[in-house]
């Protein structure tokens, strides 16, 4: 169809529609790409607190051998156990060097492991008898030797548990002062950069008196 000037009206209309469609598609792709950029390369919010806090956990006197006490560190939703093992341990503090603390989150898939005393069995698996003080993850059976910085001695965990660095002051109070590698499960899992432990939550400022 031709208009008064002899142009092909349909032709120009078609051209216009083509350009409009192409422009829309470009805009749409650009929009999606900007969203995908955030998804694929998330910007980790800078945490102004980049060093581990020093918080009181428990006192030496209140710890009984083989009774774990839970505390949150370094973020308020990250559980840890402090345990008096009864045998000297790597990184252990206290008069007998047998008080250790570890992240309670298994490095395999993030379940909470439980303490098993020497000669005892975990509730889930009666066929396993602990040769020494171990941590046993009830989900898939990872076993950590708590006297050897939570070395993996069984099960699927690819890494040992992150150890909490402890200090004891002159009055017998135990303080958590930092975390050893690897980073806590869920905090850039698999990295050895302990600064990752401080991202994604609120730092613990005061620890409730555990007894």
């Amino acid at each position, binding site marked *: 169809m031709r208009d008064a000037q002899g142009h092909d009206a349909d032709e120009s209309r078609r051209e216009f529609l083509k350009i409009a469609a192409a422009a829309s598609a470009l805009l749409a792709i650009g929009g999606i790409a900007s969203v995908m950029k955030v998804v694929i390369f998330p910007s980790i919010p800078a945490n102004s607190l980049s060093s581990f806090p020093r918080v009181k956990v428990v006192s030496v006197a209140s710890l009984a051998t083989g009774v*774990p006490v*839970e505390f949150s560190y370094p973020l308020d939703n990250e559980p840890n156990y402090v345990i008096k093992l009864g045998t000297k341990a790597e990184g252990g503090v206290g008069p007998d060097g047998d008080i250790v603390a570890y992240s309670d989150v298994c490095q395999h898939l993030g*379940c909470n492991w*439980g303490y098993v005393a020497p000669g005892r069995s975990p509730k889930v698996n009666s066929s396993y008898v602990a040769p020494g003080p171990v941590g046993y993850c*009830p989900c898939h*059976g990872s076993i950590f030797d708590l006297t050897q910085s939570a070395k993996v001695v069984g099960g699927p965990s690819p890494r040992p548990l992150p150890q909490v660095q402890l200090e004891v002051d002159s009055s017998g109070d135990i303080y958590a002062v930092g975390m050893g590698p690897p980073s806590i499960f*869920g905090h850039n*899992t698999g990295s050895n950069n302990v600064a990752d432990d401080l991202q994604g939550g609120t730092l613990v400022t005061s620890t409730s008196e555990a007894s």
Partner: protein
Amino acid sequence: MTDQEGEGGVAGRVAGWVDSRLGLSHPVLRPVPQYALNPFYWLGALAVVAFVIQGVTGMILMLYYIPSPTQAYSSTQYIFQSVTNGRFLQTVHLYTAYAMIMLAFMHMMRGYFVSVHKRPKEVMWVVGMLMGFVTLGFGFTGYLLPWTVVSYSATHVGVGMVNALPQPLSNLLNFLIVGSGGDAGELLRFFDLHVVILPAVLLVLLAVKMYMLEAHGVAEPTSGASPEAKAKTLPIFPDVTVYVLELSLLFGAGMLLISALFPLNLPAEYSAITAGQATPQPDWYFLWIYQILKVSVFDVGGGLAAALSVVTLVFVVLVILPFIDRGKTRAISRRPVYVTLGLIFVGELVMLSYWGYETPGATIPTEQAALVVGGTALLIALGSLLAYRVLYSRAKVRLQTVPAARLPRTEVRSGLAFTVLVAVGAVAIGTFLNSIVGIALGDYSLASVGLFVMSGTALALDVLGSVYLIYRLDLRTGGIRRKVKALEVGWRE
């Protein structure tokens, strides 16, 4: 019908009004062939009915449930203890979820065995598989909501698996299901997925699938349908509607009855201490994945990714199955390989799930896993072979006796085969007797039972092989018959 309006008294007039306004007696949907009025044709429909029950009970539960880490458990407890029939509703919601997953699985396997995934319904199968994944997603996201010991651990395992996936998939999924708000954000996202996003996705997929079903119609029986059978159809309203309503009511009544008889108990609230001492097993439909994760071959670095690859492979094969199994025939009797593979798939799922249920939190030695998985496959394959021989042997086919000529090379081969069979048989008999003695002495470990099964199977295969070879010998001339079928009975003259 409009022309009936005003006839047959008040009831007739009301019915006529309703009919003329809703167009019920002018259905736009295809009529349904008579042979489809069989419960097996309606497994998927029953899964949809389960979904509707889930919607109704879920909406009531939603009125009381609070998705926050501090109140999730207490509000669930409130439903159990204080809401009228709250415990019953919660029970119905859980059991119907189980039923929905089981029905979806049965629907899938039945479809596979009677070949409904074949041309031209490949895309329907793919959409159905996506619906299955959404259904499993309902289960997974529903886990976390009550904030019990198991729910928290199970969710962390799921999120941990997501973290082990390659980038950018891992980040994308993390963004979708976890966000960056810690426990509170995660719980809120799981809740939103469970009550809004997944239902919406499932409904869209259902609409797409139902459109395709309407386009293709229900599948004929595998034996084919005669033109008369095809012509015998029933209108969707009222006949088929009433039939489906009956089935649905029966199913719903069953669910209510089971829920009333076996009410749920709410497990303990999550805390790190209780979680470390609990038995955090997933629900039955994830037990097979749980068991695969526990096999010690995956204990090495990168083992998790390998285990997940196995699971992913299973799901991928399920999705693209119509493009793998492309044979034209739909008859079970003529697809022994695919039917056997399907039976092995079901058998392995059941075996792994039961085994996972029996061995919580214990890693499985790789050799034992290989033995049991392999043994299961072998047993099912053997059983399937026997079943095919018995069910589908063609008694009427006359076997041709090959002229008994001397075939020296064949004889040498047969002799070698005999030697191998005798040697294997000797070992198998020894192992078999040993394992019987072991079991008789009270060693019921899986390794010993596995050895019993394996050596027994080997022995059975050995005997079958020997029988086959003997049947091939032509006794009159000492020659070898070439064409004798396995398990053929009797000599033909």
